[in-house]
């Protein structure tokens, strides 16, 4: 296990390093002068020189590269060209908002998905199963922006139970925060929950006919325990692996959901930065999101590992 932890951590560090390097190159690979590109047509020579200085473009390539990492380690992600504020001033809040959306959706999607998957598998080929399978097709096939827009239309305008509000943090007003959290979370949960339901159902259908489930029955265990402790427990292995992948998809979908519901996460930061060619912000956001995805995969692998004792020796 220790060996696995070490190699897996080393891998994560390498991945982060690779992502950082790519982000660094990204800006330098823009044809022409990135400072000029950022400032647009009407920029004066003076402004360009200033921006070049701010983006450290005047140093040698090597010292730029090491400088990039050096500043990164000090928590300096550069200064926004647009607002002239350090990126670190806005990013943590924005990232926190986005992660809240993703994590709340994930917890609900996994809990509900595993529960529904279990119901479907134990009632295979019965009405409840058919309904769930049919329902999950909707969840999987409807794109996030369709579900989001529909929900917004119905619950914010046609039946205004959850009218659009100004964004409030949970510390300012927990109730209002919860209200504005509902629609984006439901939108995000729909697809993931459907995928996890199907995964759980398929995995459980397999484990339910496994020899060890028959053994558990032959011991005299109650059927509910046979299902929970034996069939569901082993079915969680593939579900956990799939959830890690699903989480990455979820992070991608968040960009759309944030835009639809006006959620002040990283996506609006990224959108405006891309539109305005605010390179330091783009770099910072890409780096942050990549780091989250890498960490998520690391945690996912560790969870899968912890669930399966066989993985230790392999």
């Amino acid at each position: 296990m220790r060996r696995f932890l070490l190699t897996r951590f080393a891998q994560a560090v390498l991945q982060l390093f690779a992502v950082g390097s790519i982000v660094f190159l990204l800006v330098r690979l823009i044809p022409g002068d990135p400072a000029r590109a950022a400032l647009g047509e009407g920029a004066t020579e003076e402004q360009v020189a200033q921006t070049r200085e701010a983006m450290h473009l005047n140093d040698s390539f090597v010292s730029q590269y090491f400088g990039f990492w050096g500043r990164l380690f000090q928590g300096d992600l550069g200064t926004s060209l647009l607002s002239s504020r350090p990126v670190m001033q806005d990013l943590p809040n924005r990232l926190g908002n986005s992660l809240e959306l993703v994590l709340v959706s994930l917890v609900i999607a996994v809990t509900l998905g595993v529960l529904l998957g279990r119901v479907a598998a134990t009632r295979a080929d019965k009405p409840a199963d058919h309904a769930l399978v049919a329902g999950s097709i909707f969840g999987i096939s409807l794109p996030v922006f369709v579900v989001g827009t529909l929900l917004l239309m119905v619950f914010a305008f046609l039946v205004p139970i959850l009218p659009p509000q100004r964004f409030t943090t949970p510390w300012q007003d927990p109730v209002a925060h919860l209200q504005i959290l509902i629609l984006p979370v439901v939108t995000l949960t729909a697809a993931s929950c459907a995928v996890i339901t199907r995964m759980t159902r398929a995995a459980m259908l397999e484990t339910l006919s496994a020899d060890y489930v028959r053994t558990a029955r032959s011991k005299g265990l109650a059927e509910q325990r046979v299902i929970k402790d034996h069939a569901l427990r082993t079915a969680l292995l593939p579900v956990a692996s799939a959830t890690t992948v699903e989480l990455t998809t979820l992070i991608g979908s968040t960009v759309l959901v944030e835009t639809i519901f006006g959620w002040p996460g990283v996506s609006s930061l990224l959108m405006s930065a891309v539109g305005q060619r605010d390179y330091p912000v783009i770099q910072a956001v890409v780096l942050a999101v990549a780091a989250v995805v890498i960490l998520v995969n690391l945690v996912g692998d560790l969870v899968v590992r912890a669930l399966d004792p066989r993985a230790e020796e392999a």
Partner: protein
Amino acid sequence: MTGAGREKEGAAPEPVLSVERLSVDFRVAGEWTPAVRDVSFTVGRGEVVALVGESGSGKSVSSMSVLGLVAGSARHRGSIRFHDTELLGLGHEALRGVRGKRIAMIFQEPMTALNPVYTIGKQIAEAIRCHEKVSAAGARTRAIELLTKVGIPEPERRVDSYPHQLSGGQRQRAMIAMAISGNPEVIIADEPTTALDVTVQAEILELLRGLRRDLGSAVLIITHDMGVVADVADRVVVMKEGEVVEEAPVGRLFAAPEHEYTRRLLAAVPKPPPPGAEPVAEPKPEAPKDTTLRVRGLEVEYPGRLGRKGFKAVHGVDLTIGKGEVLGLVGESGSGKSTIGRAVVGLARATAGSVEVCGTDVTGLSGRRLRAFRPTYSMVFQDPGASLNPRWSIGDSIAAPLLVNRTAGRAAAHARVAELLEQVELPAQWAGRFPHELSGGQRQRVGIARALALEPELLIADEPTSALDVSVQATVLRLFRELQDRLGFACLFISHDLGVVELLAHEVAVLQNGRLVEHGPAREVLANPRTEYTKRLVAAAPVPDPVEQAERRRLWREMAAA
């Protein structure tokens, strides 16, 4: 001990479990298809009853019905009584009280029958705690006691092992520990030793016998192995196609089988020679002229994962097979016999030594030269179901070596396929059929036909009949022998079954942990083994004859005690 139940043959003890006119139907594509029809038998107190038959005979379904463990949509009729309780149609809660506590089960493959994510201690404790109010610590102590009872070394440590950390034999012992945790009156053992090596099988059967003696439990053992039946059973129930065809005390069944099917079943079992028998002069094929296969100092090491030590499966093995000779390679699982076969055909890389086929060292060949040489030898695999492409017709599978090696065009290959199918006694019109339309034995005939397509000088057969029923095995072996006589190919025949090797091989080589421990003419080695290991291997193989088996069992015990 062996004779405890047997001396009272005829006077059946009071029945604990009685199955009467049991019928089980399965719903297949909307129609009820019978799997078991009007089966009746009883198991008396402390008795060992064997339910024998080939695959599809309904023996497993009958035994699973006892505890209501038949999977899928099944319909039961008739009666299964345990003492005075009718088990068919018993409510879930009441049935749960019987399961594990009064009637326990042992399954065939302990690797899949134990849950891979829980330690064996937890699984045993779970069995205890669903019937008794015991603390977790108390259940753990009991689990350790049970593991001690079934002979698992270091039970205090093993109790925390996961199934994959144990050997096959230890896993089955853990399974048995779980089964006896509630002191059941009846133990149903469904092919408990089929997945194990003969030497381990002998130990497990000895354990079951001891438990029967100590706990007084009755045992219903389901098996297809007449050797196992002769070894442990008091009474035998023979099933065929869902019906009981014969029931008799073990002595009478083997001495005077009444039903024609029982006679056929007994005749089909290959029998190793009795221990200490006079070596029979071996009818050697005319003085060996050419050597087809010469393996010298072969070593195979499987590389370890990054930075870890590799595993050496074969240590310096020398073998020779003369033209037209059959060499039987025997040993327990993990002894490296399959690896040698794979190294000879180039599926595993030899790390040292040489493999000469017809005078050419094939270990040094690669690419085009190896391809040019490949038609000289071919392989028959263990599981014909898995080694034939399910999406290819059997004709395509057989023709593949011809087309790949460009030894024949489409039309010529077609003609050759027909010829080959006839050689393996299948109708030539079957070329268009697919593997799933064939029985296991027929599929293995196709496997042989494919291996013979290029008229190889050397055939490597890796346990070609171990997945087959005895009667099917007998016909496949007969066919194989005839083909070998007629076509005169040399053969490396890998098997764990000494009876099969004795039947086919001229020479035999015994492997232990990747090393050759004994080598010589087959009859001589098997009748008068020189090394301890071979002696144990021969003694552990049960023979389908209760009297002789009792004698073998006595010898085995002496050897085990020594």
